[in-house]
């Protein structure tokens, strides 16, 4: 009898607050947008009477998959993405009854290639980065494609330091890696004659342009950018690939390599001069606006100048804001819930 009572008591402790209709916004998606979305969510929770939204960090692809699974309170209302939604994803959404999606552009994020302050600062071109990191590269005479033979930077270009090529970067599941491949490797690869020559063979061309070497020069360091920062402090020869906000926070220890002669600074990225930057987005399920309380107010908070504006609190956290006219356009589209058409 005593035991039954104890169990009953524990049960009642555990199950107070039974499930009702959801009164809390649910957000999933990109780990790159996560630090910004959480900052907005917290501010939103503090300054309005709504509950603070719950935000999961699932990655852009995973987020869109959850988002497009259907309409109803068991599905998320908003998904963050560090890339634009794909046509196939829009189709999946439509198939599951989600016909109206609002796209909100948040701002930009730069991807930096940086090393310790105690090592010389590198000035790289995209081609040099390709030669250092691609799995297959053109041979010296430019006629054939061979496995990457370079082991030091100086072998690629005598002007670069004579240190081992060692780059710590994100694994293939990461949006940062996707963006880096797209913005650096794929852009650089067609400037080599030998790779251009195989352009008609789509499969091989894609594999060459996207393939990252697996012989130890590129180290998959996991999704945790702080870990890469700590490893760079300890290993002065290594370079790391991560989002600009981590360089911004660790400017006393790390320096960003110049890419195509441009230093990764707040100004250079927002002006579009720094070549490795991407746009960040989030997507709203229009059907949930009105059923789940607070979505419109969340949009208002996110697109306010004090959040994603030039001097807003998101800029303090490393987001590169858009210019005022673009922000105005994004804000209007967001608040009118203008559906995305592709």
């Amino acid at each position, binding site marked *: 009898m005593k035991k039954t009572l104890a169990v009953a008591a524990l049960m009642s402790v555990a199950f107070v607050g039974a499930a009702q209709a959801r009164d809390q916004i649910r957000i999933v998606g990109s780990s790159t947008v996560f*630090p910004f979305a959480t900052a907005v969510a*917290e501010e939103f929770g503090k300054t309005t009477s709504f509950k*603070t939204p719950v935000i999961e960090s699932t990655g852009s692809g995973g987020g869109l998959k959850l988002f497009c699974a259907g309409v109803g309170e*068991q599905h998320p209302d908003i998904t963050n993405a560090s890339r634009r939604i794909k046509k196939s994803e829009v189709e999946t959404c439509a198939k599951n009854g989600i016909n109206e999606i609002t796209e909100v552009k948040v701002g930009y994020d730069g991807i930096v290639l940086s090393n310790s*302050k105690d090592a010389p600062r590198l000035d790289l071109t995209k081609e040099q980065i390709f030669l250092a990191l691609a799995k297959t590269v053109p041979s010296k005479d430019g006629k054939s494609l061979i496995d990457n033979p370079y082991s030091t930077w100086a072998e690629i270009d005598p002007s670069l330091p004579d240190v081992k090529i060692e780059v710590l970067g994100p694994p293939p599941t990461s949006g940062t890696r996707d963006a880096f491949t797209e913005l650096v490797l794929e852009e650089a690869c067609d400037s080599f004659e030998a790779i251009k020559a195989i352009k008609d063979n789509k499969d091989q061309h894609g594999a060459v342009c996207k393939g990252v070497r697996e012989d130890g020069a590129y180290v998959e360091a996991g999704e945790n950018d*702080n*870990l890469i920062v700590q490893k760079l402090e300890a290993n002065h020869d290594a370079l790391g690939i991560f989002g600009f906000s*981590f360089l911004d926070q660790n400017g006393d220890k790390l320096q960003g390599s110049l890419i195509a002669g441009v230093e990764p600074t707040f100004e250079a990225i927002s002006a579009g001069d720094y070549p490795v930057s991407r746009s960040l987005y989030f997507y709203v399920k229009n059907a949930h606006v009105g059923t789940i309380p607070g979505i419109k107010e969340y949009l208002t908070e996110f697109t306010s100048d004090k959040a994603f504006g030039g001097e807003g609190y998101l800029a303090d*956290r490393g987001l590169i804001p858009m210019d005022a006219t673009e922000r105005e356009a994004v804000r209007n589209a967001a608040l009118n819930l203008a559906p995305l058409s592709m």
Partner: protein
Amino acid sequence: MTDMASLMEDRAAAKVISGNLHTPVDWDSPKIARNIKKRYAAERRFKIYGLSAIAIALMALLVLGYSIVSKGYSAFFQTYVQLEIHFDPAEIDPDGTGDPAVIGRANFDSLVKEALRNRFPDVTDRRERRDLYDIVSGGASYDLRERVLDNPSLIGQTRKIWLISGDDFDMLNKGYISADTDEGDRRLNDQEIGWYNALTSDGAVEKQFHTRFFTNGDSREPELAGIWGAAVGSFYTLVVTLLLSFPIGVLAAIYLEEFAPKNRFTTIVEVNINNLAAVPSIVFGLLGLEVYLNVMHLPRSAPVVGGLTLALMTLPTIIIASRAAIKAVPPSIRQAALGLGASPVQTVTHHVLPLAMPGILTGTIIGMAQALGETAPLLMIGMVAFIVDVPGGALDPATVLPVQIYLWADSPERAFVEKTSAAIMVLLGFLILMNGFAVYLRKKFERKW
């Protein structure tokens, strides 16, 4: 091997020396003495191997402990800044109503900003003022509100009050940001460091014990982030896990050990249980996602689902430990009970189970400790999330301690590095407590036959 060889050598030597059985072995002969010496040396070497294995393990533990504690202990303290706050009635309660609702809505942030402007009156530029306001955390206004609500007579007074500082300022005070580096390379510019020095020389900067760390939920502001939300989430999750896995696990163990016939079916069950104990935990997460979320439509991110999933994971551990404990109860006890006329159920519930309980509890607690440290299965069911509100029940969205550690480790702000280590210390503390409890139970109820 060498031991064996030398033993053979001994025997051979003894035989040679003794010649026949009537002549006694000459134990003092040099050959025997040499062999004995060799065997003692082997003994010593073996001891040294064991000792060095323990030494290596201890060293690893020390290094781990040192790196966590040295990085994390500073998170238990927080920098506070003393400012002269004027509780302006015009700002807090212009009509003098004394109504808590009115006071609660007042803009306490502007009181803090005004105090900072008064302290450094020569700062007028808009950008510089923004920097100036960063000295004090955004959370300070909530403190002021609480104070005034507790003690409305403060309105109209001017008091010196310790306010919680912002994270960059806190990092500077703790020495994680060095003033010696180039201005462009650090988070704080020369002017901000000047303000810090001015405040320090007034004695208006001090470190206080950081109670917020233990009472707050998660936050994106490192100085406001705490582990209470995650600790409560872990508690609800473990309660659900325990309520499910303990009774089911123990009943399964009793049946398999005491009642089940030995046939092919029970052998298959047995093999499967042992296999399940070795399945990677992420697999249970996928199972949880499919069964609890997609089929049963339970809420995402809720401790109830986390507990159900972790219960699947701990079940094999509990069953295996319980079976071992039940098996260790001597058969004579069962025979005596049955001989005195007890039914099999009575034998089990009155004799076997109480005697096996210490072992069962130890296994359960170790299984629970395992569940407490698990993140992978929770990823699939949405518990890896940013959740500010402390959960009020097992159906509210929640996260757990190891997930909180993971999320902080992944945050760009430098102040989260020390929070991460501090949270690891708290988690390790819980694990040590649970394991200590397991040892206590074993010692207390242990029976020797």
